[in-house]
């Protein structure tokens, strides 16, 4: 079989395009929905922390986090049915480990400062984004670092309005990035 250089070039280009699409389909398969879901949860939860009494906002956070966890789990199972890979299982275990780690330290440290707890949870979740980015796509690294910096500025710079700051900027950035990814890769 005689293959010209042009045909070889075209075949290599086709291979690269399909490989990129296949990897992207996994990397972004659930990412925009997770980001938008948790962006909306952060927005509502932090608004509750800013304006509701401490106990009521705790209940709001508990309800929203449970709902978010359940929807994330169902979405993860759905994605796992499309691509069965050792990496998917590792990603699931990584998030589960992060959750257990965070819960353990909150239980052990029992900080009285609610804002400090939310700073810890927010930055821990963003640490997860950074690690995911190192595995899958650099844009998650920048998103994770960006929101971590915003959270630190909010905590140390505008402490009385920290929750409002996080609702608008943290929740907004998560939701916006999900929407951006969805529109960009559709």
């Amino acid at each position, binding site marked *: *079989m005689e293959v010209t*250089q042009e045909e070889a070039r075209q*075949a290599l280009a086709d*291979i690269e395009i*399909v*490989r*990129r699409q*296949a990897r992207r389909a996994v990397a972004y398969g659930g990412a925009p929905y997770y980001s938008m879901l948790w962006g909306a949860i952060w927005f509502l939860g932090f608004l509750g922390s800013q304006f509701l009494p401490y106990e009521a906002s705790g209940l709001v956070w508990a309800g929203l986090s449970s709902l978010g966890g359940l929807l994330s789990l169902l979405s993860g199972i759905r994605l796992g049915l499309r*691509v069965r890979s050792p990496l998917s299982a590792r990603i699931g275990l990584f998030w589960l480990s992060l959750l257990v780690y965070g819960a353990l330290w909150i239980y052990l440290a029992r900080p009285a400062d609610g804002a400090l707890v939310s700073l810890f949870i927010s930055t821990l979740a963003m640490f997860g984004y950074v690690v995911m980015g190192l595995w899958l796509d650099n844009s998650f690294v920048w998103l994770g670092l960006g929101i971590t910096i915003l959270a630190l500025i909010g905590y140390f710079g505008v402490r009385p309005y920290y929750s409002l700051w996080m609702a608008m900027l943290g929740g907004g950035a998560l939701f916006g990035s999900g929407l951006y990814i969805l529109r960009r890769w559709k």
Partner: protein
Amino acid sequence: MARFDELIHQPIRLRIMAALTAHEPGAALEFTYLRDLLNLTDGNLGAHLRRLEEAGYVRLIKTFVARKPRTYVEATTRGRRAFEEHIAALQEILSKGENK
């Protein structure tokens, strides 16, 4: 010299192997997911997968999820090796032209 593989070089089979080898060894793609990713019909994808399976390049795994049958497709070690060889052969064709 790398081995040019005529079976793999067929455009659709080339794309199927590219999609399967985009993931790490051991990863398997669900049939309908692969079909949608490559914009193929059931019959077209099925026919090309049979050719690749006969060559020992892919493995079809039939299973049940929530009582519904599902088929997963995985590139075998032999298939991955053949595909990498084929890519190397294509690169050789390109580089020969550039060195002229």
